[in-house]
C-alpha cells in the first residue's frame, strides 16, 4: 500500500452533513427534519467483556471498543482503509513504515493525541518498557512481539510522525499496527490499565458515560471530535440476548436498530411497514478444519492426520453443496467463497468456486485410494474406513451454523464418508485443539474472523502450528507465503497473494462452508445507517428522524 491520502465518499458526505447541520436551524437531512438531541437504542445480542483493546477485539467487543477508541487506519463502508488517526502512511525504505498523524485530536479527557501516544501504545502492544511507564501487563489476546518478532523498534520522527522499523520487510505493517485502537498515554499511566477497561477514554465520536454489565452501555456524543460530530446526542447498546426479544423490542418501538437478525426473520421483517432490513458481507468465515497434520505435530499415537492427502480435502469441498446451504439455511444471507481469504479483505482474489459435484468428489477420493468396498457404501482403503469424527461446537456461532453442520455431515455421507458428529461445547473444542488431541481422523467446524483489513491475517492461518492450523503449508506454499510477507511493492504483493490464494484453493486446507452476512433491522426513524464490512457499526453520519 503506497501513500494513502484520500478523501473518501464518507468524508464528502460527512462534510455536507456537517455543513447542513451548522447552517440549518431546522436540522434536516435529505429534506427530513432530524433530532440532534435524540437517543438511538441499538439492541445487541451480547455485552462486551472488555473495553481495553489490548485484552482482545472479537466481533462483539470490537463493536463497543471502536465507538470510543480509534485506530490510525479507519475503514469505509466497503471495507477499504481510510485515514483515521493517521492522515497517511507509507513505506520508508524496505524496513520501515512512517505514519503521519492527524493534528488537533484530543481524547475525551482533553489529553492531546500525538506521536508520544502512538509510541506508548506500541510499547504496550509489543510488551516493551512497561516498567518504565509503570503500567501492568495484561492477558492480551494477540502477542504482537511473538506474531511479529521482526518489528524491532519505533521512534518519533516529529511531533506528529512515527516511524516503525523491522528487521525484514513487512508490507502489511500499516494494517497490523494501524488497526489497533489507541489509548491515552497520560491517562493510562496515571489511572492504571484497569481504567482503560472500566472508564475508557478515547478519541472516538462517542464518550462512554455508563456501563451496567450484561444490561447496557451508554454513550454520549463527543463534541470535541476531530471529524463532524455525530448527528444525534446519545447512543445506547442494549443487550437483549434472544433474537425474538430484540425483534419484539423493535416492533414495540423500544429500540431503533437491531443487530444480528436471524436470516429466517429477515425476509418477514423486510415486508413489515416501518422496518428496514439491511445487510452486508462480513468476515466471519466458517469452515471444516480437517486433521492433516503430520504425526509429530499433534498427539497422534504415531499416525499422520487421515486427511493429509489434499485430494481427500478437495473431494470434501466438491461434496458439499455450498449454494444449497447459502439458500436453504441462510436464505441468501451468506456466500460461498473458494478463496481462503474473506471477500471483504484487502488483497482478496476471487477463486473458481468448488462446484457441487459428488461424482468428482468420489473420483478424487478413488484417486486417493479410497474405494467403495462394501454394502454400507462407506469408502475403504487398506481395510480402513474413511471416517470423519466431526467435533461440532453447538450453540456458539448461531442457528445457521448449528443447522449447517449436520447438513454437511449428510452430504459427506453421500459420497461414502462415515461421519460421526460429536456436539461439544465450545470450551471443550478449544481444549482439544489446544492440547492437540484431535483424533487422527478428526475435524471440527468453526468460524474465524479478523480485526485486520489485509488478506495476510487469513493467509497466515497455515504457517505456525496454532489452534486452527491442522493442515500446515507444504514447503512450496510456505515459501510463497514468506514471499508475500517480504514483497513491499503493492502490485507485486497483490499478485503474489492472488497466486497463493489460487494454490491454497487447490490444496484445500479446509472445507470452506460459507461466509456469513450481517443483518440489521432498523426502524424508519433511523436515517442513513449502512452496515460496514468490518466487525463494528459506524454511527457517524447516521441521524434520527424528528
Amino acid at each position, binding site marked *: 500500500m503506497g501513500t494513502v491520502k484520500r478523501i473518501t465518499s464518507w468524508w464528502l458526505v460527512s462534510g455536507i452533513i456537517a455543513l447542513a447541520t451548522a447552517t440549518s436551524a431546522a436540522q434536516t437531512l435529505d429534506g427530513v427534519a432530524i433530532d440532534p438531541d435524540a437517543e438511538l437504542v441499538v439492541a445487541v445480542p451480547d455485552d462486551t467483556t472488555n473495553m481495553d483493546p489490548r485484552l482482545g477485539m472479537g466481533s462483539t467487543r470490537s463493536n463497543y471498543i471502536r465507538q470510543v477508541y480509534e485506530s490510525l487506519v479507519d475503514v469505509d463502508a466497503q471495507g477499504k482503509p481510510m485515514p483515521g488517526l493517521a492522515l497517511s502512511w507509507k513505506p520508508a525504505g524496505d524496513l520501515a513504515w512512517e505514519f503521519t498523524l492527524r493534528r488537533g485530536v484530543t481524547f475525551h479527557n482533553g489529553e492531546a493525541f500525538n506521536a508520544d501516544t502512538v509510541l506508548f501504545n506500541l510499547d504496550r502492544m509489543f510488551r516493551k518498557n512497561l516498567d518504565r511507564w509503570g503500567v501492568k501487563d495484561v492477558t492480551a489476546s494477540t502477542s504482537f512481539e511473538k506474531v511479529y518478532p521482526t518489528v524491532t523498534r519505533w521512534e518519533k520522527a516529529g511531533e506528529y510522525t512515527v516511524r516503525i522499523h523491522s528487521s525484514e520487510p513487512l508490507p502489511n505493517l500499516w494494517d497490523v499496527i494501524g488497526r489497533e485502537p489507541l489509548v491515552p498515554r497520560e491517562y493510562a499511566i496515571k489511572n492504571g490499565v484497569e481504567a482503560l477497561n472500566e472508564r475508557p477514554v478515547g478519541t472516538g465520536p462517542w464518550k462512554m458515560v455508563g456501563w451496567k454489565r450484561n*444490561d447496557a452501555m451508554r454513550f454520549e456524543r463527543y463534541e470535541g471530535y476531530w471529524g463532524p460530530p455525530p448527528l444525534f446526542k446519545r447512543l445506547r447498546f442494549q443487550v437483549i440476548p434472544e433474537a425474538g426479544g430484540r425483534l419484539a423490542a423493535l416492533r414495540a418501538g*423500544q429500540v431503533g436498530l437491531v443487530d444480528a437478525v436471524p436470516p429466517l426473520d429477515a425476509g418477514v421483517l423486510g415486508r413489515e411497514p416501518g422496518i428496514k432490513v439491511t445487510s452486508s458481507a462480513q468476515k466471519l468465515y466458517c469452515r471444516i478444519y480437517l486433521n492433516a497434520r503430520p504425526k509429530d505435530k499433534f498427539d497422534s499415537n504415531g499416525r499422520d492426520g487421515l486427511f493429509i492427502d489434499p485430494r481427500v480435502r478437495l473431494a470434501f469441498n466438491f461434496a458439499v453443496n455450498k449454494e444449497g446451504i447459502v439458500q436453504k439455511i441462510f436464505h441468501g444471507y451468506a456466500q460461498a467463497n473458494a478463496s481462503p481469504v474473506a471477500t471483504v479483505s484487502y488483497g482478496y482474489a476471487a477463486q473458481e468456486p468448488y462446484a457441487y459435484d459428488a461424482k468428482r468428489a468420489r473420483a478424487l477420493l478413488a484417486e486417493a485410494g479410497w474405494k467403495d468396498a462394501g454394502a454400507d457404501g462407506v469408502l475403504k482403503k487398506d481395510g480402513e474406513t474413511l471416517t470423519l469424527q466431526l467435533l461440532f461446537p453447538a450453540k456458539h456461532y448461531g442457528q445457521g451454523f448449528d443447522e449447517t453442520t449436520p447438513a454437511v455431515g449428510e452430504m459427506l455421507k453421500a459420497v461414502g464418508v462415515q461421519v460421526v458428529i460429536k456436539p461439544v461445547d465450545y470450551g471443550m473444542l478449544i481444549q482439544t*485443539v*489446544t492440547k492437540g488431541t484431535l483424533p487422527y481422523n478428526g475435524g471440527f467446524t468453526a468460524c474465524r474472523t479478523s480485526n485486520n483489513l489485509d488478506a495476510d491475517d487469513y493467509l497466515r*492461518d497455515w504457517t505456525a502450528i496454532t489452534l486452527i492450523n491442522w493442515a500446515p503449508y507444504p514447503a512450496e506454499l510456505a515459501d510463497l507465503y514468506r514471499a508475500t510477507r517480504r514483497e513491499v511493492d503493492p502490485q507485486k504483493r497483490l499478485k503474489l497473494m492472488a497466486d497463493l490464494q489460487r494454490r491454497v484453493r487447490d490444496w484445500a486446507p479446509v472445507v470452506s462452508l460459507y461466509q456469513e452476512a450481517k443483518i440489521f433491522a432498523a426502524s424508519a426513524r433511523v436515517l442513513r445507517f449502512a452496515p460496514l464490512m468490518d466487525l463494528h457499526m459506524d454511527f457517524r453520519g447516521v441521524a434520527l428522524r424528528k
Partner: protein
Amino acid sequence: MSSFLLRRLVHGVFVIWGVVTAVFFLVRLTGDPSAFLVDQSATREEIAHVRHLLGLDRPLYEQYAAFLVAAPRGDFGTSIRDKRPAMALVLEHLWPATVELALAAALLSTVLVVPLGIISATHKDRAADHVSRLASLLLQSMPGFWLGLLLILLFAVELRGFLPAYGWGTWRHLILPAVALAAAPLAQNARLVRAGMLEVLQQDYVRTARAKGVPERSILYRHAFKNAAIPFITVTGLSLGFMLSGAIIIETVFAWPGLGRLIVQAVPGRDFPVIQAGVFVFALIFVTLNLAVDLLYAAVDPRVRLS
C-alpha cells in the same frame, strides 16, 4: 434453640466449604480458560504465556491453598472474562436485579397461591376447582421462555409498548419477568396447597371446630392452612433459593442483567473465579433459606421442636 442454631451454623459452614471445594476441583477438570483469551491463531507458546499470567501453571495444591486463604475474605480472584473482582461482579448481578426479580416472583406466587389453593380445595370438583386445576396444569406445563415470549408479544408488541419488552430499572420492567418466573411455582404450589387442604379438611379437629360454630374463614386460615402449610413452606423456600440463584431462561428472554446470565456465561468461558464466587453465594443462600425454613416450621407447627 441456641444450640440448634449453633449446630446448624457449623453444619452450614462445612456444607459451604464442601461445595466450594468440590467446585474448585470440578471446574478445573473441565479444562483451561487460557485458550479463550487468545486469538484462534495463537500458538502454544502464547497460550502458555497467558496461563502463566493467570497463575494456572502453578501446582493445583498451591492454587487451592491460595484459594482457601483468600476465599473467607470474600476474595475469589479476578474474573477471567471481565477482568474485575469476581465477588463484586456476582454481588452486582445479585443485587438488586436478581433479588428484585426473585422477591417479586416469590411474592406473586405466594400471595396468589394461598387463596387459589384454598378455593380449589373448598370447591372440590366444582367449576372453580376445575378452572384452578386446569390453569395450574397449563402454567406448569408451559416452558418459561415460551410464556415470556407470549407476554412480550401481547403486552409490548400488540399493545404497543404497554409494558417494556426487555430491560431492567423500573417497576414496569419487573412485571412481565416476575409473572413469567412466578407462573410455574405458583401452579405447583397451588396444587400442593389444594392437596394439603383437602387432607386437613377431613381431619377430626376441623369437624370439631365446625361443630363448635367456629367461622369457616377462621377454620380455613387459622386451623387448616397452618397444618397444610408445612410442605408449602419447604417448596417455597426451595423455589426462592432457585430464583435467587438466577432464573437463567427468564433473565435471557427479558434481557434481565441478573446472576443467572452471569453464571451461564461464566461456565462455558471457564471463568473459574466467577463460578466459584457464584457457587459460594448460591450455597450461602440455600443454607440460610434451609435454616429459615426449619425455624418457620417451629413457628407454624408447635409440635416441631428445634433441638
